């Protein structure tokens, strides 16, 4: 019974924790401009993140060490450093966007300007990172993030023509009002949002925090293979809601407030209040995950003691990194840079950093010295190789498409 509860809790938190500000904004924006014609990218991205999260989770469970702790040891300091710089830069950008997202959610609830909320949001995130137990943090925000199911309910309540929606999603094509480069720019952005590097950083390091062992492999795989795809369903629901309400009238999403409007139209105040809880939980939870990921990556590269499973004084440098990252995030946001723009850039740069993040995972997961009998099988290697080609293509296309389309304008 206890094991069943652990599996259920793991799946629920994986669903609720899957969506972050990047997923919310990008899916809402894409839905309002392209309908569900880019839903295939979400499906592709979710399969990809499942493949690599399973690999990194398996590495953590078998070796007792997170994947990136092994990257430097296995691939040397040069590759390790490239991996660190690329993924950490993107994760820090995402961390900034998430703190901004928390402030925007609070602004929507209170109508107090988000700039006034930023120091408070940053402080609250830092306090949770410093004081709150890892499992409590993960479970509370993961479960509260489930509030975003309200978008699926809103879509159902809007009474769409399901066959039209299915046709849009299953027969992808460039809408008449958009051009091909813009379509593919947003395809890359959605792919980057779904496969953002911090998810595997956090997943593998979190496995070590929770002391996974070989017997936890089944639970880990269930969380990944059930929780993440259901989290992907939430992403598609957000896109569907904006496709139904905004696409016919020409609204293009560029604020978090617009993301929730279809829920208000469909379900009224109660639905909108639930969506606001979802916005807050998703962004706050992801801020904690990205903040920790910044600390994990730097500490693991330099070989410092890291993690929340030891007292802060025992991982002092790790906590200093968390504090500095939070201060940086607050400082950047107080320059009045638009958090939604930061989000939009973070998902595209995320796509650029993908090969440097995922290639080392594939190498480590194939090394019998670390993995013993649990090295990648044929299916994992085949999928991993196909996705390496995809992430490489996305990484190479991201910047040229950004310039060509003026960042999707």
């Amino acid at each position: 019974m206890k094991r069943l509860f652990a599996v259920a809790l793991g799946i629920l938190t994986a669903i609720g924790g899957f969506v972050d500000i990047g997923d919310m904004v990008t899916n809402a924006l894409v839905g309002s401009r392209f309908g569900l014609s880019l839903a295939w990218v979400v499906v592709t991205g979710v399969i990809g993140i499942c493949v690599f999260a399973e690999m990194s989770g398996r590495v953590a469970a078998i070796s007792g060490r997170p994947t990136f702790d092994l990257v430097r040891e296995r691939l040397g300091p040069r590759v390790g450093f490239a991996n660190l710089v690329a993924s950490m830069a993107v994760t820090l950008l995402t961390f900034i966007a998430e703190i901004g997202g928390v402030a925007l959610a609070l602004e929507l609830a209170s109508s107090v300007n988000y700039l006034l909320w930023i120091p408070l949001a940053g402080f609250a995130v830092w306090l949770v990172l410093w004081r709150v137990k890892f499992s409590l943090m993960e479970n509370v925000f993961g479960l509260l993030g489930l509030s975003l199911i309200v978008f699926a309910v809103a879509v159902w309540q809007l009474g769409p023509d399901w066959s039209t929606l299915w046709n849009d999603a299953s027969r992808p094509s460039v809408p008449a009002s958009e051009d091909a480069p813009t379509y593919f720019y947003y395809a890359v952005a959605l792919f980057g949002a779904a496969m953002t590097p911090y998810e595997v950083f956090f997943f593998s390091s979190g496995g070590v925090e929770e002391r996974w062992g070989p017997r936890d492999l089944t639970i880990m795989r269930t969380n990944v293979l059930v929780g993440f795809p259901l989290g992907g369903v939430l992403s598609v629901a957000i896109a569907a809601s904006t496709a139904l309400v905004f696409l016919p009238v020409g609204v293009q999403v560029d604020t978090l407030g617009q993301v929730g409007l279809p829920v208000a139209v469909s379900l009224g105040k109660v639905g909108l209040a639930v969506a606001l809880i979802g916005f807050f939980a998703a962004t706050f939870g992801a801020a904690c995950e990205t903040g920790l990921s910044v600390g994990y990556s730097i500490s693991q590269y330099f070989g410092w003691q890291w993690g929340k499973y030891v007292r802060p004084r025992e991982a002092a440098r790790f906590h200093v990194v968390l504090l500095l990252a939070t201060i940086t995030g607050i400082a950047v946001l107080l320059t009045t840079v638009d958090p939604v723009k930061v989000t939009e850039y973070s998902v595209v740069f995320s796509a650029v950093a993908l090969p440097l993040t995922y290639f080392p995972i594939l190498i480590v997961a194939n090394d019998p010295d670390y993995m013993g009998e649990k090295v990648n099988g044929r299916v994992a290697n085949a999928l991993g190789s196909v996705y390496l080609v995809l992430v490489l293509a996305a990484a190479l296309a991201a910047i040229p498409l950004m310039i060509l389309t003026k960042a999707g304008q």
Partner: protein
Amino acid sequence: VKATRHAAYATACALVLTACVTPATGTDSYRGKASASIEAAISEVETTRIAVDALLDDRIMVPYADVTITAAESALGAISAAFGSVQPPDDPQADELRETVTALVDAAEEAVTDARIASRRPQQAGLQDALTTLDDVARELDAAEVELR
């Protein structure tokens, strides 16, 4: 270090290039910018319409609607400023287009400002008037967009 420097340089170039507002090189290009401005204005006016409609039906919290409408108002100000800063080509048609688009975007901004003021007041009549004005402005913007296609 060299690779890092190249990557930083490429990133900086990408950010600069995507942030630039290119000057209009001819009437067609100017029409393209006018069309984009009208499309962006439609997006903001329709967002405000949905928010005001939801307020009238008591389907949205006042702070949420207020933030959403205020954001639309700021966006319209930015659209107006961005289009106003583009140098039109030396062509009477371009001057006429400039006047039309500027007037439409300004009217949209004014309608959204009225909606923002009404959304912060308890009386429903103001909101209803704001919605009527937004409907009119949206129709004019739609007509302009069709003409510019």
